[in-house]
């Protein structure tokens, strides 16, 4: 059971508020029921601690430097409050004002949401990770410091929180202890949930104070808009990478064909998460093979932003979200394609199809479709010759929150797996009730300092438990098992998670996308497309 802590204490505490102890974490099934299931969490070094504020729980996502003097402290508080006021303005926050007002006005404090939150549960019910903790903190700050007459009523309303730079810094960090998975919202009897508030807090930090995790902002959206991709890949590097992938396809399958790039008038513009080109090239390769075999008219783009579907703005900043969504749409418009198909990337699905839907007007409102829908159509229409026996190994499916709970794409990927993977089994719970992989809302790419330990040790723990449960009885390392995760960020998180628990070597658990399984089932390919070799798995932590 986590330490009971009040908001007053959170604001007042000198030094670190909570010290996580892996012994408190939710237990894992064998073979992780001992020390292997509780790897120690690294602390920041002394010099890092001197520079950066890690006083919430010993981790830092925002990497906020300690204010140097009273004036800097006051300025942080002043600007934070200014940002909170903007959240309540119809001009500055038309994007989410309505849903925010409802969340600020109506929480019954029934705590139903707590039992649904993978982070709260995995951490052994740490009070600070309770879904309502950060929401209530913001609510109380607004009640006391922003609402008219707030200070008079603050005691009655429970708004006993003191706003100082520590409260602000810790609230900022708390906004990055939620993966925005919205599992809590599903069970909320009022229909509100807590993710939106976490994201609104992130917006105050980014849009007003200019503070965001560097992986999301400086190396993320800013780099994507300037260089073309959040991976740092330029259009020229993309072309090199495509050339390499073409060669690899030929080597693996004997299929020699030029990938269409910037082909005007193609039916489909396929946009991948550019991380696939660098980390999992077999994924775009599999897409190319499928589309080519199915005779689809498609193209990739080599325009800035047009070859990277990611939109990190959806996690922390509405202006950046709008900028990137507009670029994606503009690229599609110029190529005169009939539709954009988004590759296996969950947040890109949600950002471009759902969240940015009410930003794109006129000819920029190019139709957008999920690759899972297209693949389901291709597989069920019989255009591909598939032999399920080629996938004769245990397979389970991870449901990316953004595609499933937040977009309602549930069955297409299952229909495919039921056809091509005879040993497919669901995780429990699954579908719209799934657990987040723990890498949601940007965590999967936030590799700085000791944050990955928190991400794998806490945020991904429920997912790891689900995976072990799904393969119970078959955890022998000699039986290769496949976690199908049709999302680049989820794959990034699974890569770290399996490495953190050394689960590939210990239990023979591998991960990959859906298209790789489809190609692996292709009856006319001589060699398997998927290879299982623990020695080939890069050691991420090293």
């Amino acid at each position: 059971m986590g330490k009971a802590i009040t908001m007053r204490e959170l604001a007042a505490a000198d030094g670190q508020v909570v010290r996580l102890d892996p012994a408190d974490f939710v237990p894992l099934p064998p073979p992780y029921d001992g020390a292997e299931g509780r790897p120690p969490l690294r602390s920041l070094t002394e010099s890092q601690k001197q520079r950066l504020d890690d006083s919430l729980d010993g981790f830092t996502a925002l990497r906020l430097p300690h204010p140097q003097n009273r004036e800097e402290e006051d300025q942080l508080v002043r600007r934070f409050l200014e940002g909170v006021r903007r959240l309540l303005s119809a001009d500055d926050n038309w994007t989410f004002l309505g849903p925010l007002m409802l969340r600020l006005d109506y929480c019954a404090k029934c705590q139903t949401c707590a039992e649904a939150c993978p982070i709260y549960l995995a951490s052994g019910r740490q009070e600070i990770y309770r879904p309502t903790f950060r929401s209530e903190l913001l609510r109380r700050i607004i009640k006391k410091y922003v609402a008219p007459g707030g200070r008079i009523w603050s005691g009655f309303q429970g708004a006993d929180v003191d706003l100082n730079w520590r409260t602000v810094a810790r609230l900022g960090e708390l906004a990055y202890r939620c993966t925005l998975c919205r599992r809590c919202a599903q069970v909320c009897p009022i229909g509100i949930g807590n993710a939106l508030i976490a994201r609104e807090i992130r917006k105050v930090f980014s849009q007003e104070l200019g503070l965001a995790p560097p992986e999301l902002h400086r190396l993320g959206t800013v780099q994507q808009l300037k260089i073309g991709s959040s991976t740092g890949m330029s259009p020229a590097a993309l072309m090199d990478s495509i050339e390499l992938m073409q060669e690899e396809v030929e080597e693996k399958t004997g299929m020699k064909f030029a990938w269409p790039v910037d082909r005007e008038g193609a039916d489909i513009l396929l946009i991948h998460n550019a991380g696939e080109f660098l980390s999992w090239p077999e994924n775009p390769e599999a897409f190319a093979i499928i589309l080519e075999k199915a005779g689809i008219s498609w193209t990739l783009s080599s325009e800035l932003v047009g070859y990277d579907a990611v939109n990190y703005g959806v996690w922390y900043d509405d202006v950046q979200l709008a900028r990137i969504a507009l670029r994606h749409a503009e690229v599609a418009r110029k190529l005169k394609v009939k539709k954009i198909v988004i590759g296996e990337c969950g947040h890109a699905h949600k950002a471009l199809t759902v969240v940015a839907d009410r930003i794109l007007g006129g000819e920029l409102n190019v139709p957008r479709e999920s690759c899972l829908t297209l693949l389901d159509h291709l597989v069920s229409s019989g255009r591909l010759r598939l032999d399920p026996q080629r996938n004769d190994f245990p397979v389970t499916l991870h449901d990316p929150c953004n595609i499933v709970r937040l977009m309602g794409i549930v069955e297409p990927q299952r229909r495919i797996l039921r056809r091509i993977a005879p040993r497919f089994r669901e995780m429990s719970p699954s579908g719209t009730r799934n657990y987040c992989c723990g890498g949601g809302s940007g965590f999967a790419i936030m590799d700085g300092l000791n944050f990955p330990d928190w991400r794998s040790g806490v945020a991904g723990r429920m997912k790891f438990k689900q995976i072990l449960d799904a393969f119970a009885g078959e955890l022998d390392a000699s039986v290769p098992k496949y976690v199908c995760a049709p999302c680049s960020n989820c794959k990034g998180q699974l890569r770290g998670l399996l490495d953190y628990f050394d689960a590939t070597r210990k239990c023979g658990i591998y991960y990959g996308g859906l298209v790789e399984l489809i190609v692996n089932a292709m009856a006319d390919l001589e060699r398997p497309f998927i290879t299982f070799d623990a020695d080939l798995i890069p050691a991420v932590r090293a």
Partner: protein
Amino acid sequence: MILSVSQGFCLLCVVVFALGLAVRAVRYSRAPMHLRWELYPVPHEAGKPYGGSYYEEPDWWKRPRKRTFSGDLKVMLSEIFLHAGLWQHNRKMWVVSYPFHLGIYFVAVFLVLLVVGGVAGDLALVLHNLTLGFGLAGMLLVIVGGVGVLARRLTDPDLRSLTAPADYFNLGFILALAVTWFVTWLCVDPSFALARGFVRGVFDAAPATPVPHAVAAEMVLLGLFLVYLPFTHMSHFIGKWFTYHHVRWDDSPNLGAAYERKVAAALNRPVGWSAPHISKPGKKKTWAELAREVE
């Protein structure tokens, strides 16, 4: 129509109550169009009880949307009348919260019947019995459920940690109201005839007839509660409509001229955020201008 002070006060309270709720509803419904934030399952998606959406269909924008109002209705009714979500996800809370809310529904029906009786004058026996039944059952359920909710809030550390004094006050207020009405019924007004007479006096041309202090007190307390309610989260019965229909189930895609106009208007709003990647010296830019910049 000559009203006593307490009758006049109660009438005023009802007016403030109605206005307060209306202001809330208008405030939410006039909030600017927001970006989509739906959550599945969305029950009006026809034929997809597992939580699927129209995005599962190839070329979804070319197909007519298959919506079923009955899906929404089923969830709404089971939420309103059974608190099905709480039953499913928080049984411990449901056990106390459901009787409490059911009691409030009964009391609401009772109050309506009281007004109907007051306006109609002589009562048919069935109306009389219904008033009595709903009133007593409602008050008892509110008291039992309310004590249960209070006990859980006080004893369960998970609930206690974030409960504010105002939450205890609200519960206490409702309990005090229910107990006052119950005791008045028991000791002074066993058929609610006096309460009905009080209500009738509001609509009658006749001069106000004095009622026992206990009846006036229960009425004034009720009036005070009605004035207070719209300004608290107890008005969640209004909010819940918006959280479900305007956010959680709002999956309407941006297709058609009406949306085009709304999008254009929204993008024309000025942006005041002052982070360096947004704000530059000079005139405030609109969302549309900012979105076209590369930062």
